[in-house]
């Protein structure tokens, strides 16, 4: 199976790059969930799978979203991975910017950059908004 030059290798590279951080984050979040929330679900008749899907995952959701947002905000700016692994058929926005900048075409590079920043801002705002409303106490 051909891996180099496909989207799959990019995904694998990014996952590998950021897995350590998100693992620690989720572990900390999971420790905070009181075990009895799960025990209450078990006693209420949900099996292990039902408890995980309906209770554990849903209660962990804010931490999950948080971690995802952080990874997105960083991955979008990542330089090294795309430099080595992106090809013309798997072009990333950052590559476009780099390409334009190399050619000396500052206006185009800046325009792409603005698009990139706007995208990240929108994502973070939407994400924060969803998190905020979910976490009201």
């Amino acid at each position: 199976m051909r891996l180099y030059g496909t989207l799959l290798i990019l995904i694998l590279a990014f996952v590998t790059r950021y897995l350590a951080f998100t693992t620690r984050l989720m572990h900390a979040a999971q420790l905070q969930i009181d075990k009895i929330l799960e025990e209450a679900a078990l006693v209420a008749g949900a099996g292990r799978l039902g408890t995980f899907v309906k209770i554990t995952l849903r209660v962990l959701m804010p931490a999950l979203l948080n971690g995802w947002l952080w990874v997105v905000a960083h991955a979008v700016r990542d330089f090294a991975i795309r430099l080595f692994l992106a090809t013309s058929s798997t072009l990333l926005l950052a590559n476009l910017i780099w390409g334009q900048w190399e050619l000396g075409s500052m206006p185009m590079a800046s325009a792409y950059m603005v698009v990139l920043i706007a995208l990240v801002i929108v994502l973070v705002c939407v994400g924060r908004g969803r998190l905020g409303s979910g976490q009201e106490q």
Partner: protein
Amino acid sequence: MTKHGRLVVEDLHMTYKTAAGVVQAVRGVSFTVQPGEFYTLLGASGCGKTTILRCIAGLEAPERGRIVIGDQVVYASTERIVEPPHRRDIGMVFQSYAIWPHLSVFDNVAFPLVSGRRRFARQQVREKTLRALSLVHLEALAERPAPFLSGGQQQRVALARALVAEPTVLLLDEPLSNLDAKLRAEMRLELKNLVKSLGVTTLYVTHDQMEALTMSDSVAVMHDGVFVEEATPKDLYLRPHSAFTATFLGETNLIAGKVVGRAASDGLWCVDTRHGPVVCPRGDAPEAQDSVWVACRPEGVLVSAARPQGENIFPGRIMAVVFAGDQVTYRILIGEQMIHVKSDPFSSLQDGDAVFVQLPPERCFLLRRADQ
């Protein structure tokens, strides 16, 4: 509304392995809760009562024993039966309620019907959930997100959730201990009336004597992983069989003595103590020469300035007076022993008064005493 069921626990043993070594939390406990009965496990922290409850719920794995809920054997070490919690027909209320924060009150209570042992049609779910909520007077809050509830309301939601699927047995793990005193007193009565009206077999765990005495049909006093004594609240308080129960449940005055034999009066026995002879009911069949404690509750002892008529009268001096609003406690020195007496708050006895203390025979009881 609920089906009646019996809870049987036989020879339960449970051990924890900790870093410090092996801890035997439950050491051979057996008891039966009859259908519809309110049964309480009473004991101090660490006596094993919560462990027993969690073993019945299936949240802990015992070492050996047998647990039967209704018609279903849920745990039997000899036959290698271990049913997981979601296959046991129980409802449980946790000490900290365990309300799910991401669901509304309605969804919390409906969860056992939607995701539990038996799934119901939507209309039935709605009916049963609203009925459970009305039992705890929370119908108005059905759509409220769970985090926006007070402690007392959360506790009611937990109760409704435990009862909505009409379990065979209801398990309660110190459900009132996180409430303030006034709310606790209200909820005691409400909780008892609720489970009694539903006729659901209930196992209640607590360290609070008030709860145990006011709510239960039967109480089992626990200490260090075993049952010390098991009786109705009244028998347990007025006629305990062990010195541990007598001193754990309320206060008791204990006077060391040796049984002499039958007394002149009917049914009473004479005990020789260092304050003089005492007559009291025979109790747990002691024989002559047995070492016993003569026990009398502080509220059973009579105190007066003038010498009264009758048996078991001793002169003494009041060493301390503690006024507590609805009662007054005297500490009275008799010979070299301090006796506690609870009396009505309107009496006029003062610190330092010379008084007579009377232990009415019918209010005394005998307990075995290990020889020194």
